């Protein structure tokens, strides 16, 4: 019986090899034909699908055969009066192997893939968050390794044996108290630090920034509005929105007149920036991971995030040895089909660079919008904006 099966499996091995050859040919054919979806392609497509299905079937047959062989082996062993396959031992050993391979794999992943994660924070509060993160990581990793080692270690060491009876241990109040209180203490510490860090980051008593910028999300882009020379952003009202005045800025208010729009979010280093966050249609999320900044943009619920960039883009490029590095702002709340590509470059620059940059930005109130709003003097104020916006817009 067993012998016959073996021959069978040899045959299938040959089959398998043939399939692999056939399959590579198939794949080659497909890659060359890619692009022009013709009728010929369709035929190739079905062979490709059929090939994969067959591959799975062949795999299944192999599994079946191995299973049968094991069964036959097991039976013959038993007939000869020996003990059959001891699955308990095999599985116990598998647990031990998994433990070792898993520890290795997890450590590898932590080191290699962990090394691919975000660089040091580019903002003042980012440091607080990162040290919180480090503490939490160390504590949880200790627990992770100890508990997984216990789990699979116990599974291996206490695998079934007919000679032994399990140790009857229904409970032990002391040890249960210990392992309730210790996690409670550790978590209390984490909560307390977390709470104060959170309060500091989201500080709601300090409301003002040195620079106020409006960031508004809609499907599928971000609009950026700077306050202009007066350092004050004009109010918006969604009902005023038109194709030329997407944000619905209210020009009855004088503060609106000098507002500027921009394509890039340029921020002066070491200044407190207040990002005012709006959404027009659905929920979006302003996500700037390098600064450890995120807040949802919710229609009808304006919010803001205050933070201080501390490392210029230039410095970060040097640190990371990556001349193409850019800080980014992207959307992090599902908002429709274009959600995956809704980004703006954020550039942190020196004070002087900021000022020369802001001077070059267009006024929000452009000529078309002037016409639409029937503003008489089309050209003059726009020029004056340029003239005065050379100073950093300070929020009073």
């Amino acid at each position: 019986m067993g012998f016959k099966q073996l021959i069978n499996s040899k045959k299938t091995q040959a089959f398998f090899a043939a399939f692999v050859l056939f399959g590579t040919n198939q794949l080659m054919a497909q890659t060359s034909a890619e692009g022009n979806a013709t009728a010929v392609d369709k035929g190739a497509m079905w062979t490709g699908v059929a090939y994969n299905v067959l591959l799975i079937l062949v795999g299944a047959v192999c599994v079946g055969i191995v299973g049968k062989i094991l069964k036959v082996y097991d039976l013959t062993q038993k007939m000869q009066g020996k003990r059959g396959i001891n699955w308990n031992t095999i599985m116990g050993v598998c647990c031990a192997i998994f433990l070792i391979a898993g520890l290795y794999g997890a450590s590898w992943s932590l080191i290699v893939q962990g090394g691919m994660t975000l660089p040091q924070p580019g903002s003042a509060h980012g440091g607080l968050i990162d040290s919180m993160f480090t503490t939490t990581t160390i504590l949880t990793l200790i627990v992770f390794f100890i508990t997984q080692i216990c789990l699979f270690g116990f599974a291996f060491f206490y695998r079934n044996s007919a000679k032994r009876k399990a140790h009857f241990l229904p409970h032990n109040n002391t040890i249960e108290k210990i392992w309730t209180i210790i996690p409670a203490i550790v978590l209390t510490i984490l909560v307390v630090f977390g709470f104060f860090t959170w309060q500091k980051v989201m500080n709601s008593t300090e409301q003002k920034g040195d620079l106020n910028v409006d960031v508004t999300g809609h499907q599928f882009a971000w609009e950026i509005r700077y306050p202009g020379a007066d350092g004050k952003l004009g109010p918006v009202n969604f009902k005023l929105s038109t194709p030329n005045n997407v944000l619905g800025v209210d020009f009855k208010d004088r503060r609106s007149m000098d507002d500027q729009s921009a394509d890039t979010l340029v921020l002066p280093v070491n200044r407190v920036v207040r990002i005012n966050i709006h959404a027009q249609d659905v929920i979006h999320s302003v996500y700037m991971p390098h600064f450890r900044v995120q807040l949802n943009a919710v229609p009808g619920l304006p919010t803001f995030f205050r933070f201080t960039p501390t490392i210029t883009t230039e410095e970060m490029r040097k640190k990371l040895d990556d001349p193409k590095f850019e800080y980014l702002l992207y959307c992090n709340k599902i908002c429709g089909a274009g959600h995956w590509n809704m980004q703006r470059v954020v550039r942190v620059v020196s004070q002087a660079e900021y000022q020369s940059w802001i001077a070059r930005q267009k006024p929000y109130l452009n000529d078309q919008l002037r016409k639409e709003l029937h503003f008489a003097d089309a050209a003059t104020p726009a020029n004056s904006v340029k003239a005065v916006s050379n100073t950093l817009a300070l929020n009073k």
Partner: protein
Amino acid sequence: MSTLAVHDHGVVHHEEGHEHHHKATFLNTYVFSQDHKYIAKQFLVTGIIMAFFAMVLSILFRIQLAYPDKTFPFLTTLLGHFAPNGRISADFYMSLVTIHGTIMVFFVLTAGLSGTFANLLIPLQVGARDMASPFVNMLSYWFFFAASIVMLSSFLVEKGPASGGWTIYPPLSALPKAMPGSGMGMTLWLISMVLFIASQLMGGINYISTVLNMRTKGMDLWKMPLTVWALFLTAVLGVLSFPVLVAGVVLLIFDRSFGTSFYLSDIVLNGQVQPYEGGSPILFQHLFWFLGHPEVYIIIMPAMGLSSEVLAVNSRKPIFGYHAMVYSLIGISVLSFIVWGHHMFVTGMNPFLGGVFMITTLIIAVPSAVKTFNWLATLWRGNIRFTPAMLFAIGMVSFFISGGLTGIFLGNAALDINLHDTYFVVAHFHLVMGSAAIFGMLAGVYHWFPKMYRRMMDERLGYLHFWLTFIGAYLVFFPMHFMGLDGVPRRYYAFTEFESMKRWLTVNVFITWAAIMAGIAQLAFAYNFIHSIFWGKKTVQNPWNANTLEWTAPIEHIHGNWHGEIPTVYRWAYDYSKPGHDEDFIPQNVPFSQTMSSNLPHDFEDNPAGLEEHAKWVDAQKANVAVK
């Protein structure tokens, strides 16, 4: 009163045999059955079919993530205009993740898991002839079935199924023009969920009343197996929280169809000013997560209960700290109602509120930790029998640890600023909820298969299934943590537009292949399951030498569960390897008078007469020894 009537019903039925007033027809035996054991199987099979469907969806979107630039002509053949030119469209990608999440969370891990095991185990383990109301119980299944059909039918809609994520936040889900899936697909999603919730409530009320009113003689609450405790508390959570989702869903229907503004305000869509004013999108999130967080425990608690039972039976040891296990389940249940805000730290909710939710959230980690340690202590010095069920239960504990620990990061509001909605969250909940609960469920299927189908599943295929799935799940979800820590967002159609995310492409390819491997491994399960139903080895009365009552019921399924009287319960469910007893298990229906040699003073804590007897017996033994 009604419970008494049901009791009698069963007895009468048995005594009168087949002359009972309603005849067994094909319809009422195999389709509209009111027998809890059959309904359990209906839930299980429907749940497994839904799981396979949702798994295929996940493979489809994994292909997109791994090969964003390649074309696959067969996708166009398979999906038509949802995948033009051999590539899944961005809109349909969103539908895939949405429906995958919805089906897995609600249809598989809520209905498929609770529905199966609450139905099967509650009456059999507490010693009842059936559910409190078998008719409502049957309705519960058929509402679930209808909900499944409606949910699947949304793939037949021109514009595709709902696509706003399984959390369907408005305004995205409220404005049909915001994305194609928010049209008819979303309507079907909402109808399906209303049916689903009705099903859950009917089921839940039944489970609760059965546990409270229909326990057999001697089965006081503190003698119930942990499975029953877990399923009972799960049902309580469901009954208290699902209605809130109905409220949220109804208001959403109003906003969509009747022009109200509960969730909508200040909206300009595609350049068009919309008339909505005064609503709040955040209100929906509060309502959703008031259900949503208890929901994740609705999913994991049955898995915890099943695993606790399987771990104890196969370690041949009492579950360690039974009382602590029950109290931690109760603690989790209560706390799960006051932590929902941790899903909303960065919505712009008042930061102080965020601080409060952070405190409650990290408190809930304590009972979770206690449960984990108790499981480990159960294995310690056991005599572990590696049935496939046992392996899956061990896998469940491993996933619960790995995923639970990342909860401590996310529960910390300060850390969540950067982690929210990234792949870190995806990794967290797929390990702690997805994988852990599926493994708990599979442990249950392998363990109670003989009870359901009177045959055994093949062990070796079970081993293969376990190892491939277990390793596959870790390979899929472990690397995702690091993508999240690099600021890679979830629900992105492709990462090709971001220079910084391109280096994760190889990892994405790796994950996709690991997922495909794990997916193929499920074929081993499907084959094993179907083959064993018809051709598996016949089971014996008590195949695992377990203590609980279901193994005293006859192998042949009979209406009313036991011939004659229902067994009386004398002891807890965990007298495994008790010193002084010749076997390594003592079923719950064995009286202490038959096990004098193994009784402990502890067994008679609330039974002074028994304690006296015990003391006398011990003295007599001592005297005996002295004489010799």
